[in-house]
């Protein structure tokens, strides 16, 4: 593959996919946070009749009428959903379902009956776009020529539309970041501060509609939906703050676009496959893969991380229980316990607890007997102390009866709280044991 073919055939589709991904990905953050993901779905379906009608009425593909028509039908969707939900007392999910499916059906119907020839849109490209056909007919010979007016003028029209949209979206998100954030988090407090949630809602929805339209022609409705939801969802799994979520979602969107295009075009080319997957389809799959990966592997919220944390905690609990047991035995005058008993008593899933305790120098094993080392004794004393303080607290403050506090204390002793536990009124635990 030469540089020239790359510039002619690949750069524009790739750029278009990336622009669509980032534009939708940025806006998606606010949809996902406000639980309006499916509104993005609805809008990206419902812009179709607007596009088709604008094509038919103006008999051209001039961007402005098409853009306005489609944005209008996107906003019409939002308004109709609101009307059906409020006045018709229909549940919001169903209201969305009614509106977008009817509008989409209308678009498909007009397209199929009326003007497929004049519109040169077909039902297939509505769904997965026409990325592959975007070619750059006049790419520059050298890098220096890149910024000449003539070369830029030769860029395909969708690229222009998408670039302008991206700029508008970035400006929108940056300038209204605070307002969008508070309206998404707490509409009432937003209203109290003079930020009308309704206004923000419609503002956001019109920008979403605009972004959907701009991306629609190139990448199709399915990728628009995927990009409105998936990068934001991925970012939400990876970060806890809105600002970083927006940034991460943009990065994820870029990665999705790039990797999707690579898998759809370069990989099959390199491997000599006969079939070339749809770029939009492949990008969608990649977007989904990112979501799945983030759910499984997110360092803070992922399934694996949670599992590891739980395991580590369970291990610590088992170890602490073991030390406490040895400590209590010492109190009762038995300086060592049979290690076989200890292993059996520790939680079934962690039979290796005793060896690990020995390895970390908390327990010494001699023959078949285990006893606390000095370090182990200090650690055990701290645990037993917490246990007995909790027992005292539960009796003194919570008013539980003394024969009921052992079980809860077994759980509570493993927590490390910021607040200091008070010394029980009696100076000893409810069973009369001293506090170490």
């Amino acid at each position, binding site marked *: 593959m030469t540089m020239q073919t790359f510039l002619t055939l690949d750069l524009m589709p790739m750029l278009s996919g990336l622009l669509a991904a980032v534009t939708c990905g940025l806006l998606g953050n606010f949809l996902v946070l406000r639980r309006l993901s*499916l509104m993005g779905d609805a809008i990206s379906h419902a812009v179709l009749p607007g596009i088709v009608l604008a094509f038919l009425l103006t008999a051209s593909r001039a961007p402005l009428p098409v853009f306005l028509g489609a944005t209008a039908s996107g906003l019409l969707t939002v308004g109709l959903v609101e009307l059906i939900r409020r006045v*018709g007392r229909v*549940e919001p999910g169903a209201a969305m379902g009614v509106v977008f499916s009817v509008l989409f059906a*209308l678009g498909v119907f007009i397209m*199929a*009956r009326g003007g497929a020839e004049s519109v040169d849109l077909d039902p297939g490209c509505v769904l997965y776009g026409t990325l592959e056909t975007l070619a750059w007919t006049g790419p520059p010979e050298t890098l220096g020529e890149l910024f000449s007016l003539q070369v830029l003028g030769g860029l395909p029209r969708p690229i222009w539309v998408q670039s302008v949209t991206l700029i508008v979206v970035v400006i929108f998100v940056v300038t209204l970041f605070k307002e969008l954030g508070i309206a998404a988090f707490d509409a009432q407090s937003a209203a109290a501060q003079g930020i009308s949630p309704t206004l923000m809602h419609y503002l956001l929805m019109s920008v979403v509609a605009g972004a959907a339209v701009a991306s629609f022609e190139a990448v199709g409705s399915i990728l628009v939906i995927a990009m409105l939801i998936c990068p934001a969802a991925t970012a939400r799994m990876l970060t806890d703050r809105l600002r970083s979520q927006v940034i991460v979602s943009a990065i994820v969107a870029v990665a999705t676009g790039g990797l999707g295009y690579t898998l759809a075009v370069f990989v099959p080319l390199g491997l000599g496959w006969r079939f070339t997957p749809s770029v939009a389809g*492949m990008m969608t799959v990649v977007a989904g893969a990112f979501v799945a990966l983030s759910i499984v592997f997110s360092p803070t919220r992922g399934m694996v991380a949670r599992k590891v944390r739980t395991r580590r905690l369970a291990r610590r609990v088992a170890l602490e229980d073991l030390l406490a047991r040895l400590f209590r035995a010492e109190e009762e005058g038995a300086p060592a316990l049979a290690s076989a008993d200890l292993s059996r008593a520790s939680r079934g899933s962690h039979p290796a607890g005793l060896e690990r305790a020995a390895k970390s120098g908390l327990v010494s094993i001699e023959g078949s007997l285990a006893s606390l080392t000095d370090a182990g004794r200090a650690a055990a004393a701290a645990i037993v102390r917490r246990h007995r303080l909790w027992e005292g607290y539960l009796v003194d403050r919570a008013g539980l009866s003394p024969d009921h506090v052992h079980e809860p204390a077994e759980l509570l002793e493993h927590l490390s709280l910021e607040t200091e536990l008070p010394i029980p009124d009696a100076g000893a635990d409810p069973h009369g044991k001293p506090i170490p």
Partner: protein
Amino acid sequence: MIESSEPTRFMSDLVETLALPVRELHLVFFGGAHNTSYVIIAAALLGVAAGLVGCFALLRKQSLMSDALSHATMPGLVSAFLIADAIGGSAKSIVVLLLGAAVSGVLGVLGVHWIVRNSRLREDAAIGIVLSVFFGAGIVLLNYATKHASTPAAGLNHFIYGQTAAMTRPDAITMLAITLVAVVACVALMKELTLVCFNDAFASVSGWPVRRIDLSLMGLIVLVTVAGLQAVGIILIVALIVIPAAAARFWTNRLPTMLAVSAGIGGLSGYCGASLSAVSPKSPAGSVIVLTAGALFVFSMLFAPARGLLPELVRRLRVKLRFAVDHALEHLALTADQSIRARPLPIGRAMRRFLHTKNLISLSDGSVQLTPNGLARGRRVARNHRLWTQYLVQYADIAPSHVDWSVDQVEHILSPELVAELEAAIAEPPTNPPPTQSGVSS
């Protein structure tokens, strides 16, 4: 496209097609009917099944789950095609394709549940993710199938938007069989589904397996979705589940009626849509069926007597008018009864004319006088007004829907004992004014 030169021909074709299944109904059972008849009947029954299942999906707030489900059928559909093609089976066998579709549809639903359970993402995001990603994967598989399968894969495209014209008789019969199962199951499980949709905690405490009943609802949605893939298509089948149910809700407050109306709307959409699409194969059946359903929805939302917008508006205006009339009559009666000193009449010319046409007042040379009818009504209003106020003071628990009840109906709302009690509480019961009075003439 409708040839503009032949609109009449199109119309007559359409009418003929619409009538075809009815004319051939006797043949349908013995196998002599046209394909079209089977297809139209199957589409109608699909609408009925979707209408029934849709009611429960709507009431369980699961409407959009069916959207995720239908989009998720795409990869399974193509995979089934590829597998059947690879092992040399008949790759176009509708049963194989639909089986594949059902499996991946169920996987899609499980995917939504998996995301909701294992992440902080909400159900709406999960549905959006599953529907777009599964569908995207389906498209990629379809690209592969188009290039690599030995059987031409072009027919699979029809599953996206639905194409009744391409359906064969076995296709229609398969569809008919699946929808029949769905209808029967839905009717059989009506009581259980109602209970779980209304109050799942109560159902669970009284011993119903809520999870299994939910699963069977999901199973019913799967059946309807899969059955509708060929006729309505992946993208729009959700409409057939959502729209009839939402439209039916406008007509009634009773579930059995709602089910019947929803089934009717679904059936009608299926029937008309499939007929229209059969006449002009260029219009995708799915969109025609959905547009029919959408038109019925709009009609229901505007005109349905129980909860439609216009009847509601008329009811409100009527109540408003009645209030205005009552108010005017009350004032006139109080003036006439000398309970308050004569004041300028608070009624405009239009109201005066209206009262006159209703024979509640008589107009003689500019002065307004109550007829006996008008006087009686005015007094009743005055009395009820006090009763009502008294009631509100004592018992402030009113149903929201009762607020716009006319004061005329106080007696119907309150028990007779309560009315007696309230009357006693009113210091000066205005019940026995003298029968005739000056200023009143007939």
